[in-house]
């Protein structure tokens, strides 16, 4: 079967070039939420953006 890739349009691309100024990164550990449902609900309550990190334990 043909596995389609619709590239381009659907993506919002951010240029990272020219963004190499060192910045201070806080050492505090990020408290990652593992449940999408709870994460989205919390975001809806607080009005904050969700940073969703997709990963696999390969």
């Amino acid at each position, binding site marked *: 079967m043909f596995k389609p890739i619709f590239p381009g349009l659907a993506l919002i691309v951010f240029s990272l070039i020219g963004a190499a100024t060192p910045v201070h990164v806080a050492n505090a550990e990020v408290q990652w939420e593992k449940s*999408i449902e709870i994460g989205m609900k919390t975001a809806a309550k607080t009005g904050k953006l969700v940073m969703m990190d997709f990963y696999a334990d390969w």
Partner: protein
Amino acid sequence: MPVKVDIELPENQETTQRYRITSIPAILFLSPGGGVVAQTSYALPNQFIPVMKEALETEKDFQQKLAKLKKKPENVELNGEVALTYFKRQQAEKALPISEKVFKLDPKNRTDLLPELHTQLGLHYGHQIEGKTEEVAAENFQKAVKHFRTVIDTYPKSDFYESAQFYLGTTYAIKGKYVEAIDVLEKLTHHAKDPAVKQQAELTLTQVKNLANADD
């Protein structure tokens, strides 16, 4: 709100598919409503912060635009821009009714937003062909073709003319209509002015030809 999503867990399949995650690591910044505001793959911390800042700015601008639209619900430009943003954020459910409104308010493409809207609509329906029942797939295929054809036939001078042809060819291929796909893509490889489109068309054409041969 930081969320870690293990793409191998069954309960995360729906989200992974919805946001079309095809490679990891992938980091999305989502609005509270689930729209993709920005995305990146793994980046070093000092490169990551500008992406976060930009995501926040983008969301702020969009919220302002939504507030303006609330005050001027018949403003065609605002409707068009908001619809396009929702499509790009993969929130088609919100984009679809607003697109219909734009088509009614701006039948003559005074805003010059119609070619992009048709392209996004075509992409939306094009994504709803695979993995669907035959009936639904057929219906969405028809709709996708119709929208890409509109761009090609009605707006041949728009910036989306070549993209629409590429997506039309791809849509035919998804539906298994390899002859039509090859026809569209082959023409595009000859006349495309945009080198990126030309290259994509060539790559896809080779893929489709291989599939067509395998089917014989």
